[in-house]
């Protein structure tokens, strides 16, 4: 499967997804859903211009347009895989200089397992259903696969765009290598040992987080942010999960419409009375309304579930920032204590003074940038929610009106015939 992401969506890709040109525009909006307020300026523009899904991996074509002197050319593309995005993200996290920034959350791993499994099951069960049913279901599953594919492309693109839009991160050397170096970065997937190390690192971090967060902050702003983020993160997590479940139920119901449509069609073609036409018309209605219901589910997924999922990850990144600041505060406080001790003993005072100064600088630097980052985070969040909620409502309205018209038209025909 090949798909073009970004604002230039080929009509060919939309084939088999649904009919009606008016559905195209949502895809444009959908992919940039999370991408709010990201000024793409001439200095650096990044997007994923193409993607290819192979057996067990996805190859993204990262396309860059830049007027910066750092790059050899003004426009170039490289091919990257998911692991390389993770490598880039992790390099940001591990970089002490970026401790004061919200690191854009890493894109989730492309996961086609469920979709592939369904397609396989369909292939196995081909004998047990009619040709029409099989074709219908196949189209549906292919559309599903395509939707997941487009989503993963969007997630990876958003990550890059966030980096490119960040005044400091966009200058990062690893980022430039990622964009420009047209060979494989040889960032093989983490082996077991490394994964285990990561696991422990995270455990320690969260344990630390508990200790550190117990300390009440002198600064009101950060105190408020900490309380807010902890609660917000948990609630966004819950809302995201519930939204997911809701969207999936919606899809199940839409699938049922599909089967009902097929059964009605069979009834219509086999019946001997004048009810055939009736059944065929209702079957047609179910087929059409099912397409709309499937779109409702897909749009809810895009505008609501994905939004919540994204802010789950972003709020975690913000929490991580707060944690890093708290750690640097603890380091600062410890350096202060060490300095007092050194002065009291009159031993290694200069060393202690230097160390204390460094900690102080680090803490103040982090606090300053963290404050701005958190304010920006709020601005971005509000804008993203506004955009998505407005679009959600508009799409729900559009689909409900579409459904209503379908139903009313059908009823007019059926009542006219009876």
């Amino acid at each position, binding site marked *: 499967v090949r798909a073009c992401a970004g604002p230039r969506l080929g009509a060919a890709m939309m084939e088999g997804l649904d009919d009606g040109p008016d559905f195209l525009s949502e895809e444009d909006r959908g992919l940039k859903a999370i991408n709010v307020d990201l000024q793409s300026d001439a200095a650096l523009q990044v997007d994923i211009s193409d993607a290819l899904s192979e057996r067990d991996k996805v190859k993204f074509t990262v396309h860059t347009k830049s007027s910066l002197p750092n790059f050899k050319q003004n426009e170039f593309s490289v091919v990257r895989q998911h692991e390389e995005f993770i490598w880039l993200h992790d390099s940001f996290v591990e970089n002490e200089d970026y401790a004061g920034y919200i690191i854009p959350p890493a894109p989730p791993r492309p996961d086609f397992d469920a979709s592939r499994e369904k397609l396989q099951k369909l292939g196995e069960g081909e004998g047990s259903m009619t040709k029409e049913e099989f074709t219908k279901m196949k189209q549906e599953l292919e559309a599903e696969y395509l939707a997941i594919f487009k989503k993963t492309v969007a997630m990876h693109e958003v990550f890059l765009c966030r980096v490119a839009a960040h005044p400091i991160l966009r200058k990062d050397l690893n980022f430039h290598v990622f964009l420009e170096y047209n060979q494989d970065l040889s960032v093989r997937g983490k082996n077991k040992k490394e994964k285990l190390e990561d696991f422990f690192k995270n455990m320690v971090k969260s344990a630390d987080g508990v200790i550190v967060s117990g300390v009440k902050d002198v600064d009101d702003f950060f105190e*408020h942010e900490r309380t*807010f983020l902890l*609660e*917000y993160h948990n*609630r*966004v997590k*819950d*809302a995201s*999960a*519930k*939204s997911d*479940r*809701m969207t*999936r*139920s*919606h899809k*199940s*119901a839409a699938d*049922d*419409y599909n*089967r*009902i449509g097929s*059964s*009605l069609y*069979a*009834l219509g073609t*086999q*019946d*001997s*009375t*004048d*009810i055939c036409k*009736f059944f065929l018309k*209702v079957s047609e*209605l179910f087929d059409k*309304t099912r397409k709309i219901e499937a779109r409702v589910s897909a749009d809810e997924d895009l505008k609501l579930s994905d939004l919540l999922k994204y802010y789950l990850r972003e709020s975690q990144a913000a929490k991580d920032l707060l944690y890093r600041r708290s750690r640097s505060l603890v380091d600062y406080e410890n350096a202060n204590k060490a300095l007092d001790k050194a002065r009291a003993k009159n031993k290694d005072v200069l060393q202690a003074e230097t160390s204390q100064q460094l900690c102080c600088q680090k803490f103040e630097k982090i606090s300053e940038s963290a404050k701005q980052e958190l304010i920006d985070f*709020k601005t971005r*969040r*509000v804008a993203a*929610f*506004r955009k998505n*909620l*407005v679009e*959600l*409502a*508009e799409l*729900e*309205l559009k689909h*409900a*009106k579409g*459904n*209503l018209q379908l*139903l*009313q038209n*059908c*009823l007019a025909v*059926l*009542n006219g015939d*009876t």
Partner: protein
Amino acid sequence: MSAPVIFDRSREEIEEEANGDVFDIEIGVSDPEKVGDGMNAYMAYRVTTKTSLSMFSKSEFSVKRRFSDFLGLHSKLASKYLHVGYIVPPAPEKSIVGMTKVKVGKEDSSSTEFVEKRRAALERYLQRTVKHPTLLQDPDLRQFLESSELPRAVNTQALSGAGILRMVNKAADAVNKMTIKMNESDAWFEEKQQQFENLDQQLRKLHASVEALVCHRKELSANTAAFAKSAAMLGNSEDHTALSRALSQLAEVEEKIDQLHQEQAFADFYMFSELLSDYIRLIAAVKGVFDHRMKCWQKWEDAQITLLKKRETEAKMMVANKPDKIQQAKNEIREWEAKVQQGERDFEQISKTIRKEVGRFEKERVKDFKTVIIKYLESLVQTQQQLIKYWEAFLPEAKAIA
């Protein structure tokens, strides 16, 4: 052995047209009320009849009946009319589990649902029964509708809807072994049987899909409600005032939508799903009637074989010159000649009745499906209209986030 077909058919059809559908009688089953306690408790339903037909003493009246009364009515009608070719609508199924919960006094939503499902099924059962012109004339039916006291129906265990179905299926199995022998002179019956077989299969498939829809719609409702609560919580913790308000409003919208889903699931079930399950059972009754015709044919056939044997016996006796045995043989021949004639008449009669019944059944089926499906589509229309209202109200709230 061919029945006079074409002539009668057109006459029947003309008769059909002339009768039209002037059945001014309406039955309602309502007010389920628990009577008694413990395992002896039962539900009493109010059966109200509204009619302008002169055969009834009043134009509106009601009685109290319990489930076994309905089963008793059905068993009486079935025993009188099924074997002569009338399609007697089957009574609703018995349910030990469902009823036990009600008896034991579990006042939860599942037992209320069960009672409502049964009430609706009983109402549909009576409506179908009174629509049948022949059954409407039946004194047992009139007594059921009119008399304040009804003798307790016994042995309803054996003759519940499921019981009849089992009997019919057993008969069908037995008859299937005989099918090869029957010399079907009338292609109409063979065609019709095949059609009903196909229809049965298709309806079962459709019914399974609709049941899945009901299930998923209920799931959707529950998940929407859960999301609504979660969104409200999120709104509470959001520290941007306008966004917080919008999220709370989103939660409210989703709560209302949950209600919509519940109502739609209700319609999915009571209109669409139950229509299909009713017809699946009706078609079983139709199949039963066809099988009775086969049994009738078999009886006629057997009578002819026996007559032949009696004639052979007579011939033997004549040759053997036994005057008293000859007389006996002649008596028996007369007896069996009568039986053969009766058998032929019965077979012709049941064939005629079935043709008429099937014609009426098909007309009813078409009307029923059209009416109910249109009603169901109208429920879908309502849902969409409500959705539009809710989202139109929410949109400005979302836009107001600043």
